[in-house]
């Protein structure tokens, strides 16, 4: 059972809040060593992506587009036009996604005897509900094999729910709330994908280390033996 698969913490920034309609505008990822749980910041991935159709006027007529662009402008402290200009400088979605697949391949391990899945484990915050569906959509669109494990996922949102669902604080499950709650020092602009993955990786590894410590001292084996189910 001992995991030997790399964990890839990844995050999309998009031009709409809807996972089915949005175009990714930034993709960042950082690998986590499965043995030491070290976040390998020097091996991070970060790319800006040019959204499909941004050169056409119809692009801006999509509902909520303007609001999303304004939201990004506010986060970065730049103007609406500067956000658009920045996105236009990005690489095409196809190139970006294929580069990301190649990058993930670097972290695919040799199969151990009996091991079926050597691909890295996707991790992040709310990836099950947002980032993974986008990844699946991009794989289908650009005919690329899913670069992650299709079985194991590490969604920090789920983990935090398990720990805090019965407590008063924090009052919601937004990433911004967690930043404040944990007292995290700002690494840079929040909602920049690279800054986000560093912060998410820090939370994930901290909790994983905590789990490892707990699981080494807790007795799980046979703990249901005297329990009526």
């Amino acid at each position, binding site marked *: 059972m*001992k995991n030997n698969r790399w964990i890839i913490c990844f995050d999309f920034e998009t031009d709409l809040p809807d996972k089915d309609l949005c175009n990714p505008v930034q993709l960042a990822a950082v690998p986590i060593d499965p043995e030491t749980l070290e976040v390998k910041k020097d091996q991070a991935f970060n790319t800006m992506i040019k959204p499909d159709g941004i050169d056409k006027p119809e692009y801006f007529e999509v509902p909520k587009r303007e609001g999303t662009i304004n939201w990004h402008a506010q986060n970065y402290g730049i103007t609406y036009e500067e956000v658009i200009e920045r996105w236009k400088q990005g*690489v*095409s979605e196809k*190139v970006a996604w294929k580069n990301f697949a*190649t990058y993930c391949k*670097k972290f695919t391990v040799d199969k*151990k005897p009996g091991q079926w899945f050597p691909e890295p484990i996707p991790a992040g915050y709310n990836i099950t509900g947002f980032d993974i569906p986008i990844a699946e959509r991009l794989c289908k669109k650009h005919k690329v094999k899913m670069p992650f494990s299709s079985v194991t996922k590490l969604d920090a949102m789920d983990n935090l729910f398990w720990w805090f669902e019965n407590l008063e604080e924090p009052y919601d499950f937004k990433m911004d709330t967690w930043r404040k709650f944990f007292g995290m020092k700002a690494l840079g602009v929040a909602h920049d994908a690279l800054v986000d993955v560093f912060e998410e990786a820090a939370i994930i590894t901290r909790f994983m280390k905590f789990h490892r410590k707990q699981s080494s001292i807790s007795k799980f084996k046979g703990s249901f033996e005297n329990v009526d189910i």
Partner: protein
Amino acid sequence: MSDFIEFPCGCKFEKNSKGLPVFNPNIEALPLECDRTWDMICEGNTKGVFQLESQLGQSKAREVKPRTVEELSDLIAIIRPGCGDAIVDGKSLTQHYIDRKAGKDEVKYFDPRLKPILESTQGILVYQEQAMQIAQLVANFSLGQADNLRKAIGKKNVELMAKVKKEFLEGAVSQGNFTEKDAEEIFSWIEKSQKYSFNKSHSVSYALNGYQTAYAKAHFPRAFFTSYLRHADGKPKPFEEINDLVNNARTMDIDTNPPSIANMNENFCLVDKLPTFGLVNVKSVGVSVFKQIEGVVNENNYNVAAMSWDEFLMKVGRYIKSNSFDAMIRAGVFDCYGRQRNEMLYQYNIYKELKDSDKDYLTKVEAKTFLEGLEKTIPHIKQSKKATVHRERHLEQVNGSIAALKNPPYELIDRWSWRAKQERDLLGVEITCSEVDEYDTSNANCTCREYIKGFDNNYIAIAAQISDVREWKIRGGQHKGEKMAFLKVSDGTCSLDNITVFSDDWSKLKSKIVVGKILLLRGERDKKRGSFLVKKAQTLEQCI
């Protein structure tokens, strides 16, 4: 093989009708007392030596230490399965032979009259011919009767054996040299020997063949390894064979060159006197791909060795199947261009997404770099007669590729662990580096190669990657039922496979010693068998 190699004794490596390198010994002049050859066999360095290739052959060669063709024949006969399984007085006949030859056990004969027949095999009935001679001595068998006995033994024919037994006992009694009881005892050995005894003429010809291959290995090691590497694809597990051969060559101080586009060789061959991978030895690169590259290069008179990576990509990339090109980059075929494999891979991924028309244009355009070439395609696209919509989309794609080239999304450097893994996956063996190179090995005092070459110290520490773990349940003795382990490790200098972890240590180290892990193994040399006895295992710090 391009090189034609001949030795003063007249033995040589030459090409056969299919162009494959074969050893052609000069049978008449081949010296059978060559110390270098026998020393090599006695060291157990018998990978590739006919009949002694296996782990068992190698370890028993070390123990038997044959110095003549006859002893080599004995060795070949006693490592056959039947001999190892025939247990007498608590140990196999193989072990009896070894212990008697080493002088640890006394050579005993049932009757002194059997000594001339069994003396050469340490008193053990190894060959069918010995059974025939015994039958002649004890029961006065004629040559025809003795041959019937051989047939009965060889074919394991029960009916014939019963008939021969009757003749044997009658003959022994009428001869009067042996009592009936003794004759029965002697015949019972012959019967038991059915399970393991080997035809001596067969065994001696095996031994001669084995000696010839050992001679070739001792005197023409570079050609020998090149030839064996070429034939590795005929083995059931070609990559394992390549791994074993390359590591064995390393122990003889012969490095193997990785494949290189600068050499443009199809299969394994000698380059600068070193065995060198060919392009088709890279997984996913077939002969058709090689021919395609060769065709383009010859047709256009390209000097691939003098080209840059960017030029090769633009001029030749168009004609190579994408998965083959990808594999060649990963395997280090283009390392001669002095670029990081990840950088080349990244550029190739961008290149292969281009439209065919752009790739065609790049083969003709004068540009020093791929980026420059791409930038030059922009005015070309703008001048095209395509509909505006298509032209705009095309321009957008090329501009996206230019942006991707200028701003790679991750650091395009090769980590040792990544390179080693690619080589392992695509060539079967780590050639240019090892995963161990990424770790702090300052506490090690010995490498695998140094250990094989005889490094000895009270305390030995080897930093290596675990490549195989075989757990073994102890069958007898005070530790009966407990588990011990045999390991195989490698560290870039070569691989080491005679590593033992005894049961007391194995129970403590089992969770740490896992295939793929890089560990510092501490222990000592087993003076008797030469194997490395591991006492402690420690994880290493990654330093790069």
